[in-house]
């Protein structure tokens, strides 16, 4: 297990306590004094603070964890749970979008098609990956790979992690709306089983563009939302500072999404977030994917499409004749 880093604002008490701990250890080393009891005392305090903080995370704090700079990204999970990933580049029309990648791999020895939104870890890679914001060519590459998966009967695994599709001039000129829309329609009709996992950020239409799958699973601290809390706050509260309130109101956290029937399973994360133990998080993801793929493989062609259609057909709540319907 890596040594945890406490970089988020609400982790400040932990930062302070770890600093104290380091200081004591240093002191013990330098002066040869026995500070055993003092060190143990701080360690107890750290544990208590962790419990206190991480057991009571609010919506906005979870969003911070979903965006944590050390959070495992899609390809980290692919490396941990799949074998022989062969990346397939480009949309064959315009460009190779580095924010949305894909290719063949093996999961439990069986061939699968991977489609993944990927953020960069260091500055250079962040820019190359456009901070995980895909453009039309990314969605069109994803479509191409979905069709390849269908042709060869490979189940589709998609990894969602994006603040949203890129709002740029070129993106509009190449019709990002249409690229996403076509994916929604084609994914609904795809004749192979599909599972998506929300790894970090499920940013609106940009996320949904690879997310119309038979099953949707989500990590405990990931979020999935129609709009970013900041964007929602700016429009409805007329104040971007109201993002924490918007995050609560949007019910964008994993447990709430499960209650709303939008996601099928919440995958538990190590204490404090998946970045504290990516291997453990990956193991939980592997178990979840195994279960869902097994269930889906039991559904034959038409039945698979029928069940998928019904899944999305009944999402939403409205009123008819004075009665609420879902």
């Amino acid at each position: 297990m890596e040594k945890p880093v406490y970089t988020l604002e609400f982790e400040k008490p932990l930062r302070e306590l770890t600093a104290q701990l380091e200081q004591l250890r240093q002191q013990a080393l330098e002066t040869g004094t026995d500070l055993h009891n003092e060190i143990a005392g701080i360690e107890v305090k750290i544990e208590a603070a962790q419990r206190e903080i991480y057991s009571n995370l609010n919506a906005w704090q979870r969003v911070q964890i979903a965006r944590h700079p050390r959070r495992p990204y899609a390809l980290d999970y692919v490396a941990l749970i799949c074998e022989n990933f062969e990346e397939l580049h480009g949309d064959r029309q315009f460009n190779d979008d580095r924010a949305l990648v894909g290719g063949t791999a093996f999961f439990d020895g069986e061939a699968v098609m991977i489609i993944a939104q990927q953020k960069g870890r260091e500055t250079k890679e962040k820019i190359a990956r456009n901070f995980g914001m895909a453009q039309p060519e990314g969605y069109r590459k994803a479509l191409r790979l979905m069709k390849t998966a269908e042709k060869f009967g490979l189940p589709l695994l998609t990894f969602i992690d994006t603040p949203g599709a890129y709002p740029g001039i070129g993106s509009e000129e190449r019709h990002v709306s249409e690229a996403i829309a076509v994916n929604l329609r084609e994914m609904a009709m795809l004749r192979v089983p599909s599972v998506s996992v929300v790894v970090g950020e499920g940013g609106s239409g940009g996320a949904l563009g690879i997310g119309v799958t038979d099953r949707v699973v989500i990590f405990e601290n990931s979020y999935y939302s129609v709009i970013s809390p900041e964007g929602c706050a700016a429009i409805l509260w007329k104040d971007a500072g109201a993002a924490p309130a918007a995050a609560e109101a949007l019910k964008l956290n994993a447990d709430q999404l499960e209650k709303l029937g939008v996601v099928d399973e919440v995958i538990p994360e190590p204490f404090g977030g998946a970045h504290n133990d990516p291997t453990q998080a990956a193991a939980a993801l592997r178990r979840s994917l195994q279960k869902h793929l097994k269930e889906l493989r039991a559904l034959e062609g038409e039945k698979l499409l029928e069940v998928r259609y019904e899944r999305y057909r009944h999402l939403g709540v409205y009123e008819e004749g004075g009665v609420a319907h879902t």
Partner: protein
Amino acid sequence: MSHFNKPNYSTGTKKKKGIPAGLYTKCPASGEIVFNKELEDNLMVVPKSGYHFPLGARQRIAALFDPETFVEMDAGLRSADPLKFVDLQAYPDRIKKYEKASGLKEAVIGGVGKIHGIPVAVAVMDFRFCGGTLGSACGEKITRVIEAALAQKIPCVIFSASGGARMQEGIYSLMQMAKTSAALGRLAAARLPYISVLTNPTTGGVSASFATLGDVNLAEPGALIAFAGARVIKETTKQTLPAGFQTAEFLLRKGLIDQIVGRHELRDRLRDLLTALYLKKKPAPAA
């Protein structure tokens, strides 16, 4: 995703039902003064300049179908408040306000009727109701129109006018994009034509789902058609936006839509397109 930039009217007095109130309106294109009565009689198109003001869903339906052929569907379907959403206002209060101001129960009206004798299932969005945003009720009504086309084996036409997703319904709003697109997938598999008509404005989640999925995508002159708002793009890219960016004319030039059709020509364009794609043969001239 949602952009509540209301269409710019220059009106003499206060606005009512999204239609310029008072006696006259200034044309934003030519600056000429038009009597409102004249505008209303002309489908909200300024006669000389051809500028298209937004048209209410009821007025559009009245102008679109052969007389006495339109049968409305699901008129009683309306928004609930699944998230108990409160921002500066409670969501149900906002809904009540829009109901009162627009005289509508939802941002879309659906039904089946005939255009030049051709049966069509049609959904018409209305921007005046909550910015034409796509909530559960709106998505459900549109999906039922698509399913009606499928059941009756007739073409489908959807008129979009929307600021995008209905934020107050959170993730359910986003899922309406999937729901409507999945229904269009079935319609496409049945080889039934779908014509999308993009009117001012068609943005965000609506543009990224059913509005751009037509076998033919038509747009009204001057319509704003966008995924992301111009302000967001400017802030993100720090670039100057090209002239006419995100207008119907810009999209036509870039090859993203099939035609720009003025409101007065629409019935005939739909007749020709539906005849080609659906009837596949010119009907024999009436004896």
